[in-house]
């Protein structure tokens, strides 16, 4: 499968872009300026086959962020991003037995679940570190994307684990003015001015069973997800490997 670049269509419009549009509409944003440069039309729900490129999805996010002019946009979009409604892989996440399995699904199906940033899981002593790496080269939007993706994972884990997991967050940026959003949506273990954007957690948390977990259902959903078409990885991500 050829690797994707920013301009290549590869993101199903009915997945993440539809969620973003729905959020913007719930905030009563005018649709016309919102869709500018996104290749999407004004229909209620994008069609089954319709795909957008990473550049268009990034443009949509930029339009929404500018239209709302609110510091919580990235966090609110993150709250609903995972497990999402992206077919079998979302079901698999929903049935994940523990954090280890959820992270494995996230990393394997990242082109479906979080196309813009690629999660990379590394073990470091008694810690696990999840790095978020720019998949398509969008440096100006990176802080927004990182807030969105970290919130997505932290919020999904809190929901599925039934408790707040003690993630620690590192940001490759200076301390922002709207740090209260990070506190409320992510917690207080925040570090700014780091070299990377990463989430850290003690390995002990990876195998704690999750109350909603269901091994059979997760295996079935994963089998279905493996059969379904998956978008190609990004060129930038492949270069990183």
């Amino acid at each position, binding site marked *: 499968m050829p690797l994707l670049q920013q301009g290549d269509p590869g993101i199903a419009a009915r997945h993440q872009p539809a969620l973003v549009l729905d959020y913007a509409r*719930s905030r*009563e944003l005018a649709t016309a300026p919102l869709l500018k440069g996104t290749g999407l039309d004004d229909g209620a729900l994008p069609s089954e086959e319709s795909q957008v490129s990473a550049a268009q999805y990034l443009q949509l996010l930029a339009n929404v962020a500018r239209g709302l002019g609110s510091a919580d946009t990235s966090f609110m979009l993150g*709250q609903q991003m995972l497990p999402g409604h992206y077919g079998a892989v979302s079901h698999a996440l929903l049935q994940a037995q523990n954090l280890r399995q959820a992270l494995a699904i996230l990393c394997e199906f990242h082109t479906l679940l979080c196309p813009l940033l690629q999660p990379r899981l590394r073990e470091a002593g008694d810690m696990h570190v999840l790095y978020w790496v720019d998949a398509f080269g969008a440096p100006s939007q990176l802080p927004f994307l990182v807030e969105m993706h970290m919130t997505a994972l932290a919020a999904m884990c809190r929901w599925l684990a039934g408790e*707040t997991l003690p993630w620690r967050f590192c940001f490759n940026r200076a301390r922002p003015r709207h740090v209260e959003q990070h*506190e409320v949506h992510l917690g*207080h273990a925040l570090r700014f001015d780091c070299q990377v954007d990463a989430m850290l957690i003690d390995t002990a*948390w990876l195998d704690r069973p999750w109350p909603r977990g269901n091994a059979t259902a997760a295996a079935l959903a994963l089998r279905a997800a493996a059969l379904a078409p998956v978008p190609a990885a990004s060129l930038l991500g492949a270069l990183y490997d």
Partner: protein
Amino acid sequence: MLPLHRNSLIAAALALPLFFFLYATFGHAKPFAIWKWMDIVCEGGTAVMAGVWFLFTLSSRPRGRVTSLIAGGLCAIMLGSWADCLDEFFAVDKQEVWDNWLEALIPFGMLVLTIGMYYWRQEQFRLNEHLQKRERLFRDHRAFDRITQLADASYLRTQMRLEQERRPGFDCALVLLDIDSFHLINREHGHREGDRVLQAVGHMLLLNLRNDDLLCRYAGDRFAVLMPGVSREDAATQARHLCAMVGQMRHHANDNREIRLSLRHACALTDGVPEVVLAELSREVEAPGRGAGPAPRAAAPA
């Protein structure tokens, strides 16, 4: 708002060419050599600016006495300045007085505008009452959140700083309130319902505050109340009351299912750097087993 004022806009738009034709018909054109550019720029500029203010006013206000007076005054200033400017291009006989009357629209417009400003001031006092408990020592419309119509954390920090400067050494309490399991409401009922819950809780809190208090939306589902002149103990009592009131609410989702709400709280005095006070309080409100809500499960891994 502009379509509401269609007639005023059409009248103003017709008056501008009408004035031009009046001058072009009854006056005679001055030769280019004697045009006074300074006067043209000043008078024309005044007309353009007054026109812009006229449009700003109409586009931002519903109809009513204050709108009519302010917009009418600005429109008269615009037309008077336009007449004054046309004077630079066309010479009108000294015996004629109609052009003087047209130019007299400027002082007349100023008078009307002043009367409008007087009533606008009264209107503003009334609107301030509506904003009571939502704003205090200064105004910044950009700080207001779209959902709850409450100001944000940066507005709160500025207020804390101003309060300290205004009355140093005076007790000023700060309470943070957090909705229990708000993320589950978002998951189970959707974020639109979550927004409605935030609005409902915001209203409930506003109804139970003193007139001097300031309610802000700190971030997400966390609210902050600034209570000037209140000791820590009294603030804690107040906070418990607020939690109890929200606990008594019967919030119904769009599908009529009842959503039970409860709040956690933490309070402190605002003596210190606002960022530090807020961060500590925010950490405290998150700590397990606080307030009236169900205690979160143990936080240590097995």
